[in-house]
C-alpha cells in the first residue's frame, strides 16, 4: 500500500506538514520523500512543472499539487476520520477561512518577519487585525469542533512558527493575553498526539529563519 502513496515534502515546510498530519489522522501509510529545494528532484519538477513546489502527493503515479487541494483529495479518497464538515455551508465557511489564512493572514505575518521600519510596523498592525478575525472564529476546542479538522491543519503552522519568528526578529507578534482562545488552541494543537510527533526540531528552525531573516535585512536595508 505504501508504494502507492508518496509525499514530496521538506523537513520544515508547514504546507508539507499539513499533509503529514492529515495522513496520520486518517491512518494512511505512505513514503515520504524529503526534497532539498535548492536542488529539486527531477520527479518533483515533472510532477509540479508549473509551481515547482512541495508538497506533492503522488497516488498510484498521479500527482496532486497545492496543499489545500491535496487535503480535499485525501478527504474525498479516504472517508474515515473526515477532515472537512459534511454540510455544504459549513464546508464553504471552512474553505473561506482557509483562503483567508493563505491570502491574508500568512502574508501579513510574513511581512512582519521580512519587513523593516515603517513597513514592519504597518504589517504588524495588519497581522494583529487578521489574528483578531481568527480569534473570533474559534467556538470550540478546535476549529473542527471537538476534534482536529481541516482548518486546524491549515492554521497549524501558527502553533510552531509564530514563536520561532518572534525569537528571530525579537518582536512580540502574538500577545497571548489578547488572544486567549487562539492561545489555548495553539497549546491544544501543539500537544495533540497525531500532531506533536511530527514537529520539526525547534533549534534547527531558529537557525534556518535566522539565516533567512539576515538575507532579507541585507537585501533591503532600512532607508
Amino acid at each position: 500500500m505504501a508504494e502507492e502513496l508518496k509525499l514530496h515534502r521538506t523537513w520544515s515546510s508547514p504546507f508539507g506538514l499539513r499533509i503529514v498530519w492529515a495522513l496520520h489522522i486518517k491512518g494512511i501509510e505512505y513514503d515520504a520523500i524529503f526534497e532539498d529545494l535548492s536542488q529539486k528532484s527531477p520527479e518533483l519538477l515533472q510532477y509540479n512543472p508549473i509551481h515547482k513546489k512541495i508538497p506533492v502527493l503522488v497516488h498510484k503515479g498521479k500527482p496532486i499539487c497545492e496543499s489545500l487541494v491535496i487535503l480535499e483529495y485525501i478527504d474525498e479518497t479516504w472517508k474515515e476520520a473526515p477532515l472537512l464538515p459534511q454540510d455544504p455551508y459549513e464546508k464553504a465557511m471552512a474553505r473561506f477561512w482557509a483562503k483567508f489564512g493563505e491570502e491574508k493572514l500568512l502574508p501579513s505575518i510574513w511581512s512582519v518577519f521580512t519587513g523593516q521600519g515603517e513597513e514592519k510596523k504597518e504589517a504588524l498592525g495588519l497581522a494583529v487585525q487578521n489574528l483578531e478575525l481568527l480569534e473570533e472564529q474559534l467556538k470550540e476546542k478546535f476549529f473542527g469542533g471537538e476534534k482536529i479538522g481541516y482548518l486546524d491543519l491549515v492554521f497549524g503552522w501558527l502553533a510552531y512558527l509564530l514563536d520561532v519568528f518572534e525569537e528571530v526578529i525579537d518582536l512580540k507578534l502574538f500577545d497571548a493575553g489578547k488572544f486567549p482562545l487562539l492561545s489555548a488552541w495553539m497549546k491544544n494543537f501543539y500537544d495533540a498526539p497525531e500532531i506533536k510527533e511530527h514537529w520539526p526540531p525547534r533549534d534547527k528552525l531558529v537557525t534556518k529563519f535566522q539565516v533567512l531573516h539576515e538575507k532579507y535585512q541585507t537585501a533591503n536595508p532600512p532607508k
Partner: protein
Amino acid sequence: MTLAPQKEPESLSFKNNMAEEVVLLDYWPSPFGTRARIALAEKGISFIHKFEDLSNKSHLLMKMNPVQQRVPVLVHKGKPVCESDIIIQYIDEVWNHSFPLLPSEPYQRAKARFLVDFINKKVHESSVKVWMGAKEEQENGKKELLEWSKFLEGELGDKLYFGGDVFGFVDIALVPFYNWFIVFKTFANFNIIETECPKLVMWGDRCLNRDSVSKSLPTTDQVYQAYLEFKRGWAHG
C-alpha cells in the same frame, strides 16, 4: 456608478418564491461575479440579482462580507457564501440533482481545483499587469499570459471542455478571463493566442456560445468601460 446588464435575461428574474432564498451581490463587469452568474444559470437557479456600486458599497455587502468586502457574495437563506470558486462548489453541492459542475472522481476534482487555483493566481495576476502596468510591465504580463495559455491548451488537449465532454468548474473559472483576452486584443495588442493556442480559442468560442455564458458575460465594451472607470477612480485616490 453602477454598471447593470443592458437587458435583464429571463432566468435572472425572480419567477417563484424560491428566488427570495437566493441573492447574488454582484458587479456586472467583475470576472468573479460572472463566474457565479454562469454557475447559477447552468443549474437553472432563480435568484435576486443585486448590483453594487463599488465606490459606495451597500450595508448588505459589508454585513455579508465584512472580511473581504467584495463581490460576488451568494446569500442563501440569509447566509453568505463568499469567493467565486467557493460559491461554485457550494452551488454544486446544494443543487446536486442535475448538471454537475465538478467531476465526481476525486483525482479529477483535484485537477479541477488545481487549475482553478492556477487561474485565480497566475492568470488573474498577469491580466492585472496588462490592465494596469506601464509599458514594460504590460509586456511582461502579455508574455506570462501566453505561457499560461499554452499550459492551459496542454491541459485542455482535444477535449471539448476542461472536465471532458461536460462544461464545468474550470471552464466557468476561465471564461471571464478569456473574455478579458478578447479586450486585450485591441487594448494591448495581445493577439498571439490565435496562432499559438488554437484549441483554447476554439474552446473559448464554444463557451461563448453557451446560453449560460452569453447571458452572464459582460460585453467587451462594458469590460473596457469599467476599466476606464476604475482607472479614473484609482488615479484620483
